[in-house]
């Protein structure tokens, strides 16, 4: 039972039962509850940290923290929002560690995928590839708060309210980060290339 963006709501009855059981230490219930969201969590973490190996480590830490924190989860909240918030915090922690080590931040090929052009051909494919590479680099160049805003809102398709809650900021501050992130990505790609891509 994966909830798509815009379809999430407060924890529903079957989910609440799983939460109740998980909160009493039922590992199977926890795994069933969280397992329904694991693929999307992995996707968002991969988009934030950019590297598959690191994304796996961050996901593992996210799930461990969720297991330790499930007892404090309030059933009136949405499990998905709660998990996303842990995942975003863990991803940002990983990015900060990487920054301290002085390692370059890069987005993995899998993190962003530009769909095939309507008119397929060698020229179009090469242009799409270039655009995809440029988009990956532009996202990788964003500082973590801006990358988080862009990933949650424009790639994950969450509402501003959900994304702001996950990022842990007010809606106005979130929108400011989002517009700034788009401005930077647009500047990196260039208006000519974007308009040509349509």
């Amino acid at each position, binding site marked *: 039972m994966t909830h798509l963006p815009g379809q999430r709501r407060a924890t529903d009855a079957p989910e609440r039962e799983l939460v109740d059981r998980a909160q009493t230490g039922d590992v199977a219930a926890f795994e069933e509850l969280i397992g329904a969201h694991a693929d999307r969590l992995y996707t968002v973490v991969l988009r934030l940290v950019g590297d598959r190996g690191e994304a796996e480590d961050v996901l593992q830490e996210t799930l461990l923290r969720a*297991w330790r924190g499930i007892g404090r989860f309030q059933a009136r909240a949405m499990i998905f929002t709660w998990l996303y918030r842990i995942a975003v915090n863990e991803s940002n922690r990983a990015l900060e560690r990487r920054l301290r080590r002085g390692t370059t931040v890069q987005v993995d090929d*899998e993190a962003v995928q530009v769909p095939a052009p309507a008119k397929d051909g060698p020229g179009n494919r090469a242009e799409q590839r270039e655009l995809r590479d440029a988009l990956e680099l532009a996202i990788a160049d964003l500082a973590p708060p801006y990358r988080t805003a862009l990933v949650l809102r424009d790639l*994950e398709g969450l509402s501003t309210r959900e994304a702001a809650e996950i990022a842990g900021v007010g809606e106005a501050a979130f929108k400011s980060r989002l517009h700034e992130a788009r401005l930077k990505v647009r500047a990196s790609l260039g208006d000519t290339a974007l308009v040509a891509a349509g």
Partner: protein
Amino acid sequence: MRWPGRRDEHAWSQHHLSHYVEGDLSSRARRRLEMHAHECPECSRGIRAVRALLRLLHSSGDRSDLRAPAGIFDRVRVDAAHADSDAEQAHEA
């Protein structure tokens, strides 16, 4: 109050194109940007570029083919067991 010059208007418009496309401007600010963009090919193209960027990002967003690594919960269980064991040892010491 200084009346904004054309350069000010251009810089302001360029900075607010995403706000405009997203519908985040007041009606007054929206009219201000539209008036400038009507006369400025660069800002007019900028609006199309922001719309294209959003289409590109949204269409790149569907990665339903990505899967969490197999056995991730096994790894979490091992981690949790280690953490519990470490805590017990620390308590006994």
